[in-house]
């Protein structure tokens, strides 16, 4: 048991007053959740404190909120940890680390109805409906099940794991700048269909989401949603997969992100390190391999990039030599062989690093090590069986 102060941003719409802060003292085990703390305050002190909640186990998605400024689920955040974070923040600001309250606010990017209850219908659910969130299958259903690659189902299960809590929407910085951005939750939902081999409208979906100015290219890659998501859906990863699929469909990316990505890969494959002088033209007129034979778009984009290039030169982010294509240094000795080995490994394995399936990095390494040990054990066991006299 420990004592905590939770400081809640309250709003009582019938009071005629604006939002206000209220502190509640609660007493509970540090391993219990912030939601448990709120429910204790509600049970003991003020039953009018409004918070949506149901399962208490991070599966219903009701209790999205901001805790010390961080979007997440109240039920999944241990109150002891929330206190540590609050203390850390206070100390970073040079404040006294004593009786620091845990600050709880309603989710962002949504209107507040009452206390911690937000209007998810007008934002979150409207955006979800925007992505045609139902399967559009090929013709008549088969007599039995659709036969699909087992991996494809595991792959989209990551986005199916979304519980529609809105924490990612709450944390989305792009949506703060552009409220019309379809947003992380709805786009992750879209990937659930784009990645589903049973869906017949994948290409149409990709065009739709790419052509919408508030669509897949509106994401700024800031990772906020990945941090906020309580279910490891990693919405930004799903958005990046949509972009990749769009690129594969030949859909033009106004930011040229897909071509840029390919340019990076190609340049490093050839030179071992990044020849920045080649980036623009490789991105817009790929395949010219450093020869100055610019395409129309490559030329236009190069001219458009001139101010950036000049700024980089003036601030010495690049030396003058680096701005001239074809002068980039080669790797010393046989280091290029190592680079090629990395590319070869990546090509041979050709698998996407999916955290949902593999667990975190340490976990993955451990599983691989375990498998390697098993393989080694088998390898040593087999010959001895085959050659009993050897």
């Amino acid at each position, binding site marked *: 048991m420990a004592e905590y102060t939770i400081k809640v941003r309250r709003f009582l719409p*019938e009071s005629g007053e604006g939002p206000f802060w209220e502190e509640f003292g609660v007493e509970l085990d540090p391993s*219990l959740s912030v939601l448990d703390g709120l429910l204790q305050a509600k*049970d*003991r002190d003020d*039953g*009018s404190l*409004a*918070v*949506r909640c*149901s*399962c*208490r*186990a*991070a*599966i*219903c*998605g*009701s209790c999205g909120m901001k805790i010390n400024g961080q979007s997440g689920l109240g039920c*999944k955040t*241990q109150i002891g940890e929330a206190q540590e974070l609050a203390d850390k923040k206070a100390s970073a600001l040079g404040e006294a680390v004593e009786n620091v309250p845990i600050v709880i606010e309603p989710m962002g990017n949504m209107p507040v*109805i*009452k*206390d911690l*209850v937000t209007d*998810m*219908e007008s934002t979150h659910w409207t955006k*979800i*409906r925007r992505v045609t*969130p*139902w*399967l559009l*299958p090929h013709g008549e*259903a*088969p007599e*039995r*099940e*659709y*036969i*699909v*690659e*087992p991996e494809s*189902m*595991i792959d989209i*299960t990551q986005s*199916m*794991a*979304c*519980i*529609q809590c809105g924490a990612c929407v709450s944390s989305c910085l792009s949506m703060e700048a552009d409220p019309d951005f379809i947003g992380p939750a709805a786009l992750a939902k879209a990937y659930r269909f784009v990645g*589903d081999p*049973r869906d017949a409208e994948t290409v149409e979906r990709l065009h739709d989401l790419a052509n919408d100015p508030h669509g897949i290219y509106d994401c700024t890659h800031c990772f906020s949603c990945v941090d906020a998501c309580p*279910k490891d859906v990693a919405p930004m990863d799903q958005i990046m997969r949509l972009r990749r699929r769009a690129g594969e469909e030949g859909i033009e990316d106004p930011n040229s992100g897909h071509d840029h990505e390919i340019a990076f890969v190609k340049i490093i494959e050839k030179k071992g390190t990044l020849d920045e002088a080649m980036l623009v033209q490789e991105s817009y007129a790929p395949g010219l391999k450093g020869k100055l034979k610019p395409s129309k778009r490559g030329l236009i984009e190069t001219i458009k990039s001139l101010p950036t290039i000049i700024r980089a030169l003036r601030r010495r982010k690049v030396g003058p030599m680096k701005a001239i294509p074809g002068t980039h240094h080669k790797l010393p000795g046989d280091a290029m062989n190592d680079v090629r080995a990395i590319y070869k490994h990546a090509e041979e394995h050709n698998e996407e690093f999916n955290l*949902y*399936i*593999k*667990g975190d990095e340490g*976990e993955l390494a451990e*599983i691989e090590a*375990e*498998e390697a040990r098993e393989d080694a054990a088998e390898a040593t066991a087999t010959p001895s069986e085959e050659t009993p006299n050897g």
Partner: protein
Amino acid sequence: MPSHDVLVIGAGLAGQRAALAAAEQGVSVGIISKVHPVRSHSNAAQGGINAALNPDDTWESHAFDTVKGSDYLGDQDAIEIMAREAPEEILHMEHLGVTFHRNEEGKLGTRAFGGASAARTYYVADITGQAIMHVLYEQLMKYSEDVARYEEWFCTSLAIDENGECCGVVTRNVADGSMQLFKAKSVILACGGNGQVWKPTTNALICTGDGIAMAYRVGAKLMDMEMIQYHPTTLAGKGFLITEGARGEGAHLLNANGERFMEKYAPNKMELASRDVVSRAEQTEINEGRGFPDGTVALDITVVPKKRVHEALREIVLVGRDFAGVDITREPIHIKPGNHYTMGGVKTDVDGRTDIPGLYAAGETACVSVHGGNRLGANSLLDTLIFGKRSGVDAASRAKRIDYSPTSRKVLEDEETMIADILSREKGSGRRVSEIKLELGETMDGKVAVFRDEAGIQEALETVRRLKEEAATAYIDDHGSIFNQDLLGAIELGYMLDNAECTCIGALERKESRGAQYRTDFPERNDEEWLKHIDLELSDDGPQISYSEVTITQWEPEARTY
């Protein structure tokens, strides 16, 4: 006054399936839920859904396992229907978009589950309920012109016309507190179970037995209310669920001495015996001093290959990490039996019809009965879909046959008065609602749980009746209209107390041990006297007891061993 041919109350799997089935019949459908549909508790069903879909498997085998699991209290006609219709329903869900696990050939793959003689559980990692429910909600969004959704509307009472037929429901819009009488030709209750009557429970805070209580209050019969499942693997204290899928994947149960104790209780099926059997085994170990000091035994998942754990038991890796601080891939996790499922409920036939014309029930609210004394793992999702669908179809066909009956506004006025009364209670005039809830939960978990006896149940019943009186004067803090959750909590408390009273009455009445009802004072199953359902009906003196026959088609009761 809003009106719909078919009105569904509750939007979990049973409710959403019922609404879609009714809409397919071309009638106007409304679905009302006190929370947003995807918040419903069907989400929590982790492990999977049973069907004899594999060519080597048979529906008879599935049906027999279910009959045996029910300790022969399940109605075999209903169980046959469920087992026969299961394969088609799974395929239907797959066609709608559920991302079921595939085997290497790309076909639907299965896992093993408790009490089953074949691996016939289809699944989506360990989020099966969530995955199916979100796909059904996709369909509700697709068909939003055919099914009107009333999200965050709370039902306070059913409306009954002069002929004793159900003709609507009184609701409160949670967002603004306005009261509405909805007219309907058929009403389907799909409001889930009553787990919140116990503390702790695996059930969500919303599982307060609303549908069971509303039906009971208008005179519908309840059945087998004593049959409450304790799940073998829940986290101590918090009551969170660890899926049976963990044992399906090979996890062991160990006592504090490190012994795999199921060898003593179910030498053949071991950890995969029926839930009542495993829960009793664990409780016996704990009671006889072979548990851990925190009143638990251990579930050892480390024997399952890590990669498989990450692929198939992802959710419980998170539950272990976030809610118990345990990495289940490295060390055993402490668990104990915990309240989980309401086998009893509103008595219905195989088409969801209750005793009251126009009133239907499906899913955990209903007692068809396919689960009898003990539900098999992965049969609950199946129950919701099969009987949700059947209720929807029958409710629609009734709606096509009849006209709306004239509805009196009196029921609406009564409910408004009831709410005004709660709001008018002065602070300090009685106990707090939250205090009464806590006492109720602890009493029921103490006296009406895995092991029961007459003295204990009687004591619980007396407590429940006292709490009922106290609830009549209990006060709340919130007197507003917008999102007044405090008020809804007070109404839910009333529902919970009705559920608790009926469970106590049923448990006192059944003087034998069958399925989840284990009476230490009557430790044997007694088919001669008690192979029958206990029906309860509201009277001025509380629940009135009567009995009904158990339907037996082809499986005569046998001794039950695993």
